[in-house]
């Protein structure tokens, strides 16, 4: 829930980044962010709910504990894993860079400079890192693994997820917000709902590994 | 001291409700009226949370009220903006003074 609330505050922050400089390119970037963000918010919330259903609790420590000894959540809920990684959409980076795109003179980042720009870039990178760490904890079992102690495994998994996201992100072309919105609402959202239903059935029949 | 804290929080909630009512009754634009109504429901949320914590923490009824009030806020905003858009599309205006078709 804290993750969800923090990324909701990111919504307001990105819009304010666009509104504050009083410049049209920044504002267009901010509106693009809202369109994209709305398309991704619901699948992301369903992905987080699926994690909660699978573990029977909303607490991160319970989610990690539910995965030790058995299968990692990425095996039973792959769609949710992919959607959480696509939460990189909220940082306006990689394939989702339309709000900060080069066709808008930097869009949301158009007028920021100096300390403000440093803070914004740091925030975006931090959010990407936190999303990858959260994916490692909620889908890859946190500190679960043989031989090495738990914090080391957690760091290894987080770094692996970061590497995966950066590799894939750099290769995908920029997605236009209107097309993303269509795909997100008509394809991704039903997929996440089906995923949640599958996990719920697995939990009820006791089939969770 | 618990009693005083409850009363202070409930007074804050009452102030939010009163501010919302003043806003909702005095503004002309549909969106500003809705912001006033959101403030009223905000006050209700705070009052319900305080009632849960200070009076009956063992039963979930007040929490359910908080959930319901939050849903009411979302529904009211959605319908209010849909109505505002429809009003604008019909008459190119957003002030409720001109939306008198149901009057009389």
């Amino acid at each position, binding site marked *: 829930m804290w993750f969800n609330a923090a990324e*909701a505050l990111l919504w307001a922050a990105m819009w304010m980044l666009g509104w504050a400089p009083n410049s049209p390119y920044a504002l267009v970037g901010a509106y693009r962010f809202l369109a994209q963000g709305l398309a991704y918010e619901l699948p992301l919330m369903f992905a987080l709910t699926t994690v909660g259903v699978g573990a029977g609790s909303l607490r991160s420590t319970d989610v990690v504990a539910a995965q030790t000894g058995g299968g990692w959540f990425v095996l039973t809920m792959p769609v949710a894993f992919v959607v959480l990684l696509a939460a990189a959409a909220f940082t306006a980076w990689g394939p989702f860079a339309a709000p900060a795109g080069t066709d808008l003179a930097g869009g949301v980042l158009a007028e920021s400079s100096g300390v403000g720009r440093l803070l914004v870039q740091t925030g975006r990178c931090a959010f990407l890192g936190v999303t990858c760490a959260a994916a490692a904890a909620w889908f890859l079992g946190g500190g679960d693994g043989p031989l090495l102690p738990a914090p080391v495994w957690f760091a290894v998994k987080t770094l692996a997820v970061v590497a995966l996201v950066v590799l894939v992100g750099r290769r995908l072309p920029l997605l236009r917000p209107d097309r993303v919105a269509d795909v997100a609402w008509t394809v991704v959202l039903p997929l996440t709902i089906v995923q949640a239903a599958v996990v719920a059935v697995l939990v009820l029949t006791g089939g969770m590994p | *001291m618990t009693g005083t804290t409850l*009363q202070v929080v409930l007074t804050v909630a009452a102030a939010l409700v*009163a501010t919302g009512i003043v806003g909702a*009754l005095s503004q002309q634009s549909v969106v500003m009226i809705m912001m006033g109504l959101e403030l009223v429901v905000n006050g209700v949320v705070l009052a319900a949370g305080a009632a849960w914590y200070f009076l009956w923490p063992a039963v979930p009824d007040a929490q359910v009220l*908080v959930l319901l009030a939050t*849903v009411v806020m979302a529904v009211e905003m959605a319908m209010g903006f849909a*109505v505002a858009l429809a009003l604008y599309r019909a008459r190119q205006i957003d002030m409720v003074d001109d939306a008198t078709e149901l009057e009389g």
Partner: protein
Amino acid sequence: MTGPVLLVVLGALGALAVCAGVLVFVVDSMARATFSLLASFLAVGASLLLLDLPYLGLLVVLMMTVEMAIMVVFMVMLMMNPGGLMPMSMVHNTRGAVAAGVVVLAALSAGIWTVDWPERSGAAPPDTTVQVGEAVMGPHMLVMIVVGVVLLATMIAGLALATPRGRYDRLGPDLDRPRPDDPVDGGLPR
């Protein structure tokens, strides 16, 4: 949090909420009005977090932030006073409204401070989220059902009111056009 500290912090958050609420109607710029409403909501969300309701507090923060982000788009679109450029007074019946507000505040405050509030009965369960979850899925299931149906009805009604083009515009008078006639193409080949 113990008694006096809780009182001070809740009082401070409450004062912030009320000030932000008043500011909503005082500032000229619509973006500022929306975000001061958000500040009011965040103060209430923080109060709920302090009152041992973590799930509901975060829910309020989350929902209201996204709601205000969407609302600011509509505010800027529909409000005729974008940034104080055209100072206009969009109020009517100010004295009646203030009178109504003052009467409500006086009546509620009189009730709050004179009623003999009951003692706190029972202790909070260790997990308040589970408490509300089980309540909504068990004895209060009617709330869940009604909320679900109301939200669905709202979505349908909102869309019906908001879109200017119906299915005859999109698919032709006999509903037989091979591809819908949308101004902006979606991402899927439909």
